C-alpha cells in the first residue's frame, strides 16, 4: 500500500502521533540515562568549586562533600550542612539558604566559622532581573563580599540601608539585596540554633 493510501486511513493520524511520542520518549529516556552520571559529576564539581569560594583557602583539610549532616532548616525544609574540619576538629560549616527574591527563590551558599561569623557567601541560583538584581553575583559586583566577617553578635544591623541597616541596596533593585540579607541572617540564626549538632559538641 502506498504512503498516500495509508495516510487516508482513519487510524493513521493517531498511530503516527503515538509513534512520534513514543520515539521522542525513548530518545529522552535514553538521553537522561546517558547524561545522568555526567550531570551529577558536573554538579559535584560545581559544588566543590563553590565550597572553595566561600571558604578561605586552607580553612579545611577534609572532603566537605562527604562530611554532611542533614538538619531541619529555617523554612521547614531539610538543610544539608557540610562540615569543614582541620585535624578532625570542626572549624565551620557550609550550607545553603534560600529566600524569595524578586521572581523566585534566591539560593545562596554560605560558610560560617565555629564562632558564628560569616566566612563567605555566594549565590548558587537566582532569577533576578538581569542588569539589576544580578549584581548579587560575585562575578558582576563585589557586593556579596560584604558579608564576610559579619556576625549576629557584632554591631551589624541586618537590613539594607533603605530599611536602616548596614547593607547597600542597588539602584532600581531593593527587593533582591533585601532577600539576600534576610537569607544570610536566617542562615546565621539556623547555625546558632543547631550549633551543638553541627560542631559535634556534647551538651
Amino acid at each position, binding site marked *: 500500500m502506498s*504512503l498516500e493510501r495509508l*495516510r487516508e486511513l482513519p487510524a*493513521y*493520524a*493517531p498511530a*503516527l*502521533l503515538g509513534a*512520534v*511520542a513514543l520515539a*521522542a*520518549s525513548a*530518545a*529522552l529516556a535514553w*538521553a*537522561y540515562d*546517558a*547524561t545522568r552520571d*555526567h*550531570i551529577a559529576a*558536573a554538579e559535584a*564539581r*560545581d559544588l566543590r568549586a563553590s565550597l572553595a569560594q566561600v571558604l578561605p583557602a586552607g580553612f579545611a583539610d577534609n572532603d566537605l562533600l562527604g562530611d554532611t549532616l542533614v538538619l531541619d532548616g529555617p523554612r521547614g525544609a531539610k538543610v544539608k550542612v557540610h562540615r569543614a574540619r582541620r585535624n578532625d576538629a570542626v572549624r565551620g560549616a557550609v550550607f545553603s539558604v534560600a529566600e524569595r527574591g524578586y521572581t523566585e527563590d534566591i539560593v545562596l551558599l554560605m560558610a560560617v566559622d565555629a564562632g558564628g561569623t560569616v566566612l563567605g557567601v555566594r549565590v548558587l541560583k537566582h*532569577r533576578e*532581573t*538581569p*542588569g*539589576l538584581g544580578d549584581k548579587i553575583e560575585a*562575578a*558582576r559586583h563585589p557586593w556579596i563580599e560584604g558579608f564576610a566577617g559579619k556576625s549576629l553578635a557584632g554591631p551589624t544591623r541586618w537590613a539594607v540601608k533603605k530599611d536602616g541597616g548596614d547593607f547597600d541596596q542597588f*539602584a*532600581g533593585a531593593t527587593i533582591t539585596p533585601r532577600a539576600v540579607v534576610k537569607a544570610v541572617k536566617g542562615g546565621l540564626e539556623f547555625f546558632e540554633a543547631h550549633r551543638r549538632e553541627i560542631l559535634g559538641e556534647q551538651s
Partner: protein
Amino acid sequence: MSTRLGAVAREGLWDNNVVFVQMLALCPAMAVTTSGSNGLGMGLATTAVLLVSNVLVSAIRHAVSPQVRIPVFVVLIAALVTLVDLALNAWLHDLYKVLGLFIALIVVTCAILGRAEAFASRSGVLASAVDGLAMGLGFTLALTAIGLLRELLGAGTLFAQASTLLGPAFSFLELRIRGFDGALLMILPPGGFLVLGFLLAGKRALEHRRRAAARAVAPGLELREPSCR
C-alpha cells in the same frame, strides 16, 4: 539550485528576518537581550535547535498527515530542546551555566514551529537545513544587535561576560566605557521595546533609501516589496 538556496539564506538573514520582519519570538527576544553576550548565546542555541528541527520535520514531511502535523512538530521540537538541554548540561557544563536559562525558552519560540510549518514541512531536506541555519543566524544577528545596544546604553559596557560564553580567548571583546554607567531604563523591559522600535525604523529607512536609489537608476523598474508572511 544554488541561487535558490542563496535566496533562502538571504530571506532568513535579512529580507524575512525572524525578529525584524516576521516579528516572531519577541518574548525571548525582549527577555534575554539585556547584553550582547546573552543575545548571542540565545541566538546560537536557537540556531542549533532550528537547524535540527527543520531537517527532521523536512525528512518526515511525507509521512505526516495534515491533521496531526502541529502536535507532531510540537512533540519533536520539545524533545529536541530537552535533548540539547541534557547534552549541554552533561558535556558543556560551563556553557550550560550561562545558557541554561535560555535553552528552555527556545521551546516557546514560535519561530521554530513557524519555520517547521511554513518552510520545512513543504521543502527538501537541504533547503530546510539552509533555511534553519539562515533563520537562526538572522535571529542571532537581531538578538545580538538589540543586546549590544541595550547593554551600551543601559550599562555602558559591550559584550560583558563574553569570555564565560565563548571562552577566555574572547575576553578582548569586553569593553567598558569609563565614567558612563548607562540609563537603567534600557536594561528594563521598556528599553527592549525602544531599541527594537528604533532598529525596525532604521531597517525600514535603509530599505526605503535603497529602493529610491534603485528607482533613480532604472526608472520604472520597481523592486519587489519584501514579502510578508
